[in-house]
């Protein structure tokens, strides 16, 4: 059983900082203020903006990784969220005008309980957990991110999907006025994603509302996003406004935009290369400049927990 913690976990508990702090001071003394680049960086709490609300009552989870988390700065300033632009700095630069509150989520499709719910009603019954997960982008870089959220399966059960429900479909908000990227037709907006029911019910699959003990910054998918740690990052749809239970496999944005490059499953798989680059290795963001890429693990290192979901599935063909 998980123990309840009085308040949010401090990032210093996640990251062993002493080692590189020592080296940092040496180099700082030598006049190299940002020598972190040569040495690598770890999680630091100083960068968390004060206007992000602290989340109370966040419990630790045995499903968390023990690897050192990336800094809040890296997590919030290097990511893809095409709704705000194509560069990885765009989400941080152009999301200030986005309003994640008030927010509603529509639940529809093959379920007994349906309707439009306020975010507060969606979140109310769910205790929050910290889940420190590896995050692997399809572009061959990776991070370790201390998400705060709750199991998607717990939410799904509340809406009692029928026996017809074989898949769960998700949709991102469509607000071109607040999301400059949606004003250009690079993708077919709104962004949509999907999971099989078994994937959605898996205990590792969470809906995240925060990171580093505070609510999600706009650029990371506020106020509600999906995190599926054994799949490439683009499966983790952000700023969700609709969750639908469907009998058929739903359309997903990237797999319709470039079907030869991105599949529905999108499981992290070092053996199946992207047509234009290798997926065998990944660059861990924040690692020292002169460190080699690290090997990518099947299912992003979560094979023991999730491989059984895919017995009998040809994972080369179903990439």
């Amino acid at each position, binding site marked *: 059983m998980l123990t309840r913690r009085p308040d949010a976990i401090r990032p210093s508990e996640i990251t062993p900082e002493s080692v590189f702090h020592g080296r940092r001071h040496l180099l700082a003394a030598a006049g190299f203020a940002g020598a972190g*680049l040569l040495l690598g960086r770890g999680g630091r709490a100083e960068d968390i903006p004060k206007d992000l609300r602290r989340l109370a009552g966040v419990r630790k989870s045995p499903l968390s990784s023990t690897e050192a988390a990336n800094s809040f700065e890296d997590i919030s300033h290097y990511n893809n969220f*095409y709704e705000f632009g194509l560069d990885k700095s765009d989400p941080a630069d152009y999301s200030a005008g986005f309003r994640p509150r008030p927010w509603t989520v529509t639940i529809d499709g093959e379920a007994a309980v349906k309707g439009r719910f306020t975010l507060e009603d969606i979140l109310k019954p769910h205790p929050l957990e910290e889940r420190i997960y590896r995050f692997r982008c399809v572009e061959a870089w990776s991070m370790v991110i201390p998400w705060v959220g709750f199991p998607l399966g717990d939410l799904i059960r509340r809406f009692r999907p029928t026996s017809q429900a074989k898949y769960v479909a998700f949709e991102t908000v469509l607000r071109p006025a607040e999301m400059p990227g949606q004003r250009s037709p690079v993708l077919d907006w709104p962004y949509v994603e999907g999971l099989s029911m078994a994937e959605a019910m898996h205990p590792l699959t969470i809906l995240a509302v925060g990171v580093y003990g505070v609510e999600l910054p706009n650029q990371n998918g506020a106020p509600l996003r999906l995190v599926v740690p054994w799949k490439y990052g683009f499966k983790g749809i952000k700023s969700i406004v609709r969750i639908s239970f469907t009998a058929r496999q739903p359309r997903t944005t990237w797999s319709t935009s470039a079907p030869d490059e991105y599949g529905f499953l999108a499981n992290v798989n070092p053996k199946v290369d992207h047509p*234009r680059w290798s997926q065998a290795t990944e660059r861990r963001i924040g690692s020292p400049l002169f*460190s080699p890429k690290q090997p990518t693990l099947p299912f992003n290192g979560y094979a023991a927990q999730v491989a059984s979901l895919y017995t009998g599935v040809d994972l080369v063909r179903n990439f």
Partner: protein
Amino acid sequence: MPTLRQLRLYWKPVVFLAASLPLLRLAAGTVGLAGVRLGANPVETIQDSTGLWALRLLLATLCMTPLRQISGKAWPLQFRRMLGLFAFSYAALHFANYLFLDRALDFAEITGDLTRRPYIIVGATALLSLAALAATSTAGWRRRLGQRWLTLHQLVYPAGLLVCWHFWWQVKKDVTEPLVYCLILLALLAWRAWWARRARRAAALPAAGAA
């Protein structure tokens, strides 16, 4: 119109310094000097920055001859070799960054890339062409090769096209940026073709008059 002396003493160093700025920024960011930061993924920042500056300087090099032709002044040609060598240097750094930082000298992966990944093969072909041009860019080689030097240095156009292709191929979704560079290159090529045709016509005209 600057004199040769002004060019040597003033304009050449200025252009040299300007063309070095992107490199200085990367160097400062790497050691953390002067508050310069290379972002969360410095290896990628270096890869993209050196590649982009190699391409930009290549296009700048190609602008010098048309600039001379349009202005009728000789000074643009004074910068052609320097800009071309800068373009090659950034391309070489781009390749070195790929070898040492991106792939960390993993030769199995590198040979795999160089034989299987079309955009890398295209980039490597472009780099080889630029290397041949850089190696023969001296006055000595120019003299030794004579007319063939001009023919050899026409390679710069296919090299430019290969770079645009290389850029185009590695873009995930939005090809606007490589498209812009590609159009600039095609415009420069079109100018050269038009100018050459005009020159041929001009050469043919007196002969026709005499007949």
